């Protein structure tokens, strides 16, 4: 599934980041790369951005980018 369709307060594993995503580079540098676990913390209203937590620190990413990140839920 895409991160875009994820639910808040759940933990996900990043499976892949779509190529051609201009922001892929920055995501990787912030530590969001295939294999890592992230928790979706909150979604801003009116199609606003997502806040995810990675190793205890928060990162905000736009929805467009969230739609390019493939994740799987960790149960």
């Amino acid at each position: 599934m895409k991160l875009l369709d994820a639910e808040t307060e759940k933990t996900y594993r990043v499976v892949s980041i779509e190529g051609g995503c201009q922001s892929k580079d920055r995501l990787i540098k912030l530590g969001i790369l295939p294999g890592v676990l992230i928790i979706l913390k909150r979604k801003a209203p009116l199609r606003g951005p997502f806040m995810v937590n990675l190793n205890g620190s928060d990162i905000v990413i736009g929805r467009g980018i969230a739609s390019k990140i493939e994740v799987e839920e960790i149960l």
Partner: protein
Amino acid sequence: MTTIALVGQPNCGKSTLFNQIAGYKSLAANFPGATVTYTKGTTYIDNELVEVIDLPGTYSLSWYDDAEKETVKALFSMDIDVIVNIIDASMLIRSIELTLELMSLERPMVVALNMMDEAKKKGIYIDVEKLEEILGIKVVPIIAKKGKGIKELLQNIKDAKKPRKRCVYSQKVEERIKELSECVDKSIKGEHWPSKLLAIKAIEGFKPCEELVGRTDCSPILKIAKGELEDGMVIINQRHALCMNIFEQSSKVKKPKKRSAESYIDDLLMHPIVGYVFMFLIFIGIFYAVFTGGAPIENLVMGLFDDIDGYLATIIHNRLAFSIVKGTVDGVGAAMGIALPYLLPFLFIISLLEDVGYLPRIAYLMDSTMHRMGVHGTSVIPFVAGYGCSVPAIMAIRILKSKKEKYISAFLASLVPCSARTTVIMGLVGYFLGYMYVIGLYAFNLLIIMISGMILKKMLPGISPEMIIDIPPYRLPTIKTLLLKTWHKVKDFVYLAIPMLIIGSIVLTLISYYQLNGYINNIFKPVLSGFLGLPAALGVVLIFGILKKELTLIMLYQALGLSSISMVSSAMSPTQMLTFTVFVIFYIPCVATIAAINKELGAKGGLFVTLGTTVLALILAFLTKLFAPLFI
């Protein structure tokens, strides 16, 4: 002289450290991308003078935005003897990636492990010696904010050595890198990139490096390497694993069981409804506090200077001499009495806002609104900074990615009333017409910014990549840094505006003494009197206002030929005050701002903003003249 450069990821505390060792020169703030240009300073290590350079934060040497590029450029082109790599100890994994890259530059290097207090609070315990051994570089734990460990750091900078180790990948990867870097070594001369790093970056698809290699005979080798290493993902994964490994070997984490207090604060401040209410209240509160604090002081000081003027009249009898002395005294008095009471508390609160870490949270809240204006939430940061001063606000567009975003943000940021224009809003409109008009003007300003943004979004071509920003923890600044920062921001006013003000006062005095008013006013008459219904005498004030906006309010009453500002209400009607203030809010930015725009966007950008704002100011002031009577 030995030169040391402070290099590290955004928001790790470089500028804080710099200010501790070289004196307060670089603005530190709690959001990534606070520093966008280098600052030089000096300090002593054992009585030896060394040069220190504070650089913008960068996640790695392959830059993403122009601020990061600035750092890489500086690293490659300046004569740097020692690299001080600052690491946020609470984000070790991510930070080591940059450390590994810096190691490959093979220069004397020291790691400053900053934010030890925060790491501890998060339950992270780092075995410094172990880390030092793994990296092969001296590691010094520090708490830059409190000045802890800095002495030891400086000592180690003096004895800095080149790193003893290299980052090593799997055999398959190393073979590919070696093949490419050997080829690069032969065909590319005089490049700053170490060839191994150049090879890695090219394989990973960092455009500047990829193009550099692509132009040579090595291009086929690059293609094969990219194919075999999944466009560099293999390298990226291995490096990440290595960083994880270093972290696990050197640190122990004890997860605190309780949710942190901060996440509860975030639940409120970033709440989909309550968050906006808080944001609104915070801003209204700020303006209200500045206004209610400033107005009584304005009152008090003005009375004082009326007395001084009366006294001067009794002791100086030469009319010209009296005019000049009075002009100077009034000018300085106005600066101290009218501008500073609003400027100081305002700049103080803006500094506080920057330091606690609220701005990135506003970026999150406002992102979807900002999209309507063709920019992203990140642009909130230059906007809010713009309430303090437009120059850093314009410079902050370096952290934005696309040309379109930069243009729109620069234009809109220059429309945000800076603290100098705030003195006009509060000292003129607020003082004479009341606080509700102040709120009204700010709301009107926001509305115009929104509409301008929506129009610019349609006008300008291109798309902008969405925002990614890491949200820093809430932090409390020390009173000392807060005061130093406020002083740093207000310094310009004292050193630049006050002398200019004295000159301006003298010019005005001479103009009226030699009765030149008529000629000069004729120049401005058609636009000011004819079109906007304002006294033509305000032309000179507006011209001086382009030099420095703080002069506007202060020179206003002198230009009108009044003996004190309290008489402005007899020379200007409420409608005229509103028209004038609306014009001042929107018209041409000051020369320093124009210079900053020229630097960031080129002369075309400067011209675009200058013309655009003039037209906008004329239209809006005209509309104010027409419709203000309905509200008064």
